[in-house]
């Protein structure tokens, strides 16, 4: 069974078509990257998968469950980290994670242990009792991963997990994701527009442009098809005639806004 299955998904905001016929079939335990510039429709696709936006019945399934008809059961299987840094700065790291343990009905007897385990796995044990307002950007991201992982999700959904982070913080976040995945076999669905990151960390990728998938495969397959020494960046240009840098400034601004709010 595919952990996430999307069949010919269309989504429009009024006249604006955000997603224009997308098919996805994730394999259990893989890291699947949805790549593309801003406005490609990646986030809209994620919002449908995470039940935040409605879809016609039987177009999107998570672990075989329809995201519309079995909404609540799907939510129980998902861990979701939105693009913005969304941890609560006025709560400690531990309190942030404990809230989500409660919201996912982790039994009271196991709760403290589950919270400790996931904070430890994210390398936050030392700072667990400080308020999140004192955390660096990378720590906040790892705290959000802890929030998403405390319910032991089958599918972890990450929207641009490393935007606004420095290289060290980036690899810190990815290392933790891989460790947890190796330990529990969860599937990871991630969006990004950082091609070199996708090449390093995703088992398979799909290139998205203007609401459609233009290419799909392992990073090695896709780059080899273009030529020796080709990068995913080249693959993207080959398939779309476009570069990824179009939305650059907007991202920087969004990341700064987020940093200001959390800091």
């Amino acid at each position, binding site marked *: 069974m595919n952990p996430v299955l999307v069949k010919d998904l269309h989504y429009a905001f009024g006249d604006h078509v955000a997603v224009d016929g997308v098919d996805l079939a994730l394999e259990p335990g893989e890291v699947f990257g949805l790549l593309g510039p801003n406005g490609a429709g990646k986030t809209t696709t994620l919002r449908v998968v995470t*039940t935040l936006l409605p879809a016609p019945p039987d177009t999107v399934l998570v672990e075989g*469950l329809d995201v519309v008809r079995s909404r609540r059961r799907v939510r129980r299987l998902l861990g*979701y980290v939105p693009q913005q840094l969304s941890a*609560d700065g006025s*709560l400690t790291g531990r309190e942030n994670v404990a809230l*989500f343990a409660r919201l996912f*009905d982790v039994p009271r007897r196991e709760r403290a242990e589950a919270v400790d385990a996931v904070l430890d796995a994210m390398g936050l044990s030392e700072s667990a009792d400080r308020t999140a307002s004192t955390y660096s950007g990378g720590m906040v991201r790892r705290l959000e991963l802890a929030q998403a992982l405390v*319910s032991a999700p089958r599918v972890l959904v990450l929207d641009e997990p490393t935007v606004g982070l420095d290289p060290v913080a980036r690899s810190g976040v990815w290392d933790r994701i891989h460790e947890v995945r190796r*330990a529990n076999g969860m599937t990871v669905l991630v969006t990004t527009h950082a091609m070199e990151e996708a090449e390093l960390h995703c088992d398979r990728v799909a290139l998205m442009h203007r609401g459609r998938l233009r290419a799909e495969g392992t990073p090695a397959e896709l780059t080899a098809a273009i030529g020796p020494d080709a990068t995913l960046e080249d693959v993207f240009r080959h398939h779309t005639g476009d570069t990824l840098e179009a939305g650059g400034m907007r991202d920087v601004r969004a990341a700064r806004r987020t940093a200001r709010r959390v800091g």
Partner: protein
Amino acid sequence: MSVLPAAPPAASAERPSPVGEVTLLLRRVGAMCLVELQKLRHDRTELVTRTVQPALWLIVFGTTFSRIHAIPTGSTPYLDFLAPGILAQSALFVAIFYGIQVIWERDAGVLAKLLVTPTPRAALVTAKAFAAGIRALVQALVVVVIALLLGVGLTGNPLKLLGAAVVVVLGSAFFCCLSITLAGVVLSRDRLMGIGQAITMPLFFASNALYPVDVMPGWLQMVNRVNPLSYEVEALRGLLVGTPARLGLCFAVLLVAAAVMITVASALLPRLAR
């Protein structure tokens, strides 16, 4: 690193039992109220700054008007009459700006994260409403302390105090959900801020918080009759200082008003998540 267990297969029933639903609702309310108290514990500045206004009302307005005997409150001293009104007002001010917090949570991605937990919308809104109630209750305690220091004769009967706490929580739940409803309509923090400021004072002045209903002009008495704040004040006054009050009616009005507003706010919440 410690090994995190994989989630068990999804075996839970899709059609949950009514008992299960109520338990879930209570658990979510508990979780949200706990978070609210934790936030207060880490940052008490808001609690202190929010104390300034009720303190001024009681100390400056209250003591002055007691002295000039401008407002006929019968055998009840004016300060005793005023204290429950100011208590309700400070609870109102806490609750009415809750929608702003919800909009902030929308902008910060927190709302999306909450909506992707196995929590029905109505449970989420109810939990927020009661969290506002808890927050308002802490604020009310501060007002009670000020009133006691000013020599207001408040009841010591634990049942009546408990009743007053329930009244504050219900009233705050109503105004919190009114605020979330407005947030769901205007969708922007700035506009909601303006609306919040525009409606709090009229709600306050068109209530029995500062003066008895009999001295109001007829049209204001009509407004007063549909203003939930008046029922909150009447109940608080009856319970805390022992003035005559239609307690049954007040509780019924507050309960129905809160339930209706929770329903409306729940219906509008998804608009914020789009």
